[in-house]
């Protein structure tokens, strides 16, 4: 019962805020729709630019900054040149530090921080592995403490576990049942608003595919 009331309240609140800022929600909705069309670094940069522009208008909203950082993290994963990778992550880092001040109670912010730190690690796993795997674990831990049901936090942890499995004398595939279960339950998680983060399912599907 409590849950139902809570979700009604959440929906109501988000509806009210949507009603208050129709232009914001509309623009965010449109911009988020462009994620599907992004294929390369340049596309994500253009999209990230759009979010930066929205963030410039909506100084009180954390989501535009969130997506801005998200785009730059994705760019770092698509880029080959290590110096450029770090450059994109420098941009993401700035937005994330603002996010940590603006919305320290949001699990999604810590998930994004974990994703960003994973990006840093991937640039040079040999040298950054030890330090950054600890930092990623810290960030996912904080996300899960705020919201234990967040599937993206679980995804971050799963990726880190599978990535470091070979170093721990484990088979990455031993995490496959966990991955499958997470995928099966993915849609049970209800985002707070239509423009709240939803990403991660494709990434997880890729992982599950790799299990076969």
């Amino acid at each position, binding site marked *: 019962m409590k849950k139902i009331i809570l979700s009604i309240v959440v929906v109501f609140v988000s509806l009210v805020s949507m009603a208050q800022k129709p232009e914001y929600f509309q623009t965010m909705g449109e911009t988020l729709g462009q994620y599907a069309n992004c294929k390369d670094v*340049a596309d994500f940069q*253009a999209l990230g*630019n759009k979010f930066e*522009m929205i963030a410039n208008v909506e100084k009180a909203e954390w989501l535009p900054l969130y997506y801005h950082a998200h785009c730059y993290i994705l760019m770092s994963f698509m880029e080959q040149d290590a110096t450029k990778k770090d450059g994109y992550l420098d941009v993401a880092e700035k937005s994330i530090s603002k996010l940590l001040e603006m919305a320290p109670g949001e699990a999604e912010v810590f998930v994004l921080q974990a994703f960003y730190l994973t990006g840093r690690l991937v640039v040079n796993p040999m*040298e950054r592995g030890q330090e950054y795997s600890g*930092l990623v674990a810290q960030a996912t831990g904080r996300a899960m403490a705020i919201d234990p049901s967040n599937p993206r936090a679980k995804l971050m942890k799963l990726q880190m576990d599978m990535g470091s499995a070979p170093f721990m004398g484990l088979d990455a595939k031993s995490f496959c049942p966990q991955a499958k279960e997470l995928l099966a339950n993915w849609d049970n998680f209800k985002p707070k608003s239509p423009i709240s983060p939803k990403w991660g399912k494709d990434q997880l599907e890729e992982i599950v595919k790799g299990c076969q």
Partner: protein
Amino acid sequence: MKPKVISIILFLISVNTFPQTVITGKVTQEKGEAMPGANAFLQGTYDGTSTNTNGQFKIKTTKTGTYNLLVAFTGYETYSKKLELKGDTIHLTIQMKEAFNQLNAVNITAGTFEAGDKRQAVTITPLDMMTTAGAAGDVYGALQSLPGTTTNGESGRLFVKGGDSEESQTYIDGSLVAVPYNSSAPNVNTRGRFNPFMFKGMVFSTGGYSAEYGQALSSVLLLNTNDMPAEDQLDISILSVSMDLAGTKKWNTGAVTATLGYKNLTPYMSLAPQNLEWPHAPESSSGELSVRQKTGKTGLFKFYSSFDKGGFTIRENDLDLGGIPVDYKLVNNNQFMNGSWNGNLGEKWSMNAAGSFTNNLDDIRYAQTKVTKHIQGIFLKDVFSYPFGDQFTLKFGGEFFQKAFNQNVQMSSEIHDNSFSNRTISGFTEAQIYASSKFVTRIGGRLEYSDYLKSFKVSPRMSAAYKVTDKSQFSVAYGWFFQNPLDDYLLYTRKLMPERADHYTFSFQSFANGRTIRVELYYKDYKELVKLNGGEFYLPTSYNNLGYGYAKGLDLFWRDKKTIKNGDYWISYSYLDTKRDYRNFPEEAIPTFASKHNFSMVYKHWFGNLRSLAGINFKYSSPRVYNNPNSPVFNGEKMLPYRSLDVSWSFLYRQNVIFYGAVTNVADFKNEFGRTYASSPDASGNYPGAVIPPSSNRFYVLGCFITLTRKGNANQLDKIE
């Protein structure tokens, strides 16, 4: 037909209701090349777009009135223009200006090797140092794979660009370390006192360094200790020669680590063949305590203290006593403390305060002689820096260093007690000026006053760097460097001046795609070196500052992390031409520590399926000279070249359990480090001599590192040597 009509109607309506302004533009970089991906938008609105591959953009807006058009791109200054929107078409040509950013700007690299993990362009990282085969986990051992250094196997200390080992200084978190090496017997190699795992980064400057550092003629090694640990943990290290136990407790704003260590080479030496006889193999017990505390938003306070008590007895044939074996027994007691605070004072000022305390006592017994050497050092320093805008930073500070040295020699019939205490007070200032992101100069000076020598010295320092392309740059450095004479001389005289070296360094460095190349040319002019005139060593009149010398050479460094998958290698070569007339030299000659050609190659390979990191390195130093008193030529004999092929293997059994093994000189090259001679000739007028061998032909290490954490997944990856 119908849709067309509708769209025309719609168009008309929209034109009628909202006058639409169209802004088109082309965005270019400074050199006129198109800039794709720039963010062009009207400030405070949702109207905006990104530039296409030709740098062009088009914004349609129904807003009217005055708006700011912003064009932004990472690494460039944001372009801003006020536009009057009234329904017409505006066309703009926009040239973006590169923003100044010290991180991407040129930096001075003449003479400097930096290690850290933040940037890709650094040449050597702390992990590299730890995984270098042959370094045996010694900071100084690892540095000897870099160009500009000469390996002296009978010493183990740093010899840089034709400089003696005393000409190099070590700093930890900004504080001078008065006794950086373990005590050892003459002609037996030593190691650094500090565990390399303490450090997160280092700067190794082989010449032309900043005015912040004094009392070093050849090089400074700046070590930075780790910041905050990530979590509570217990580290256990078991090596074939030692055991260490370290516990870390962390809280929100700070952490404390306590370490206990015990080293004993007896079991090892009974198994591995030794060239020297050890009635008592090296044994020591040590303890360390390290504290980290964050203060305020930016400050970090670090404190480290250690004690170490150890000793050994080595049996040597005394050539002065007709070659009969005599025991050399050493007991060492060392205490070291180091504290630093780093942080911002207000908006712009930043401060770095540091201090250290050293107490080192050596008790030596040799035949009937008993020698006690006691060194006490206190070092204090405070550095302030203030940025005037982005491109000009002023740094200044002061330093106080007090060193007291007492030597007591008891022979069967006589006792000699000598001591000195010197206070050096220094002030320095340095300005760093960026003319652009491509050109930087650093100009500074240092004043030093030594109260024991009553000497006042001024050292100008200058350096500059110019970025030729994105990936390559030239650097130059020039400066005067002063250092007080050896403690052993200051015991008997205060009528000496500090010794002096002038450095001229020119270097080229290029970094692209995981490959680094460095070429460095240098010239060092030594002046006012201490010279002995042949009188008795205990008489002040036996010393003067008439010594001189030079060193010039070429250093090459090549590193490639890219070509071989999972492989990484670097090659160093140094050419050195040096001569001096100093100390007891009868004439200008090549010093014994210098070797003309130094070559080192390090290769590491990660075998993913074996979870192993393998390392191999090869080192070659061309024959050095030594003096044979039976020969008429001073320093006229040549020893064998030094060669060593070392291998290491690290195996990650679990992420928190690492096994490690290493062997030096696997090819069993014969090495020797010259000869030692009796101080007086025998009955036939001949000086009897003996070869100085390495303490063992090979060194074997076996080890296991275990890390225990609550989560159980941390490891000591950076502990692999």
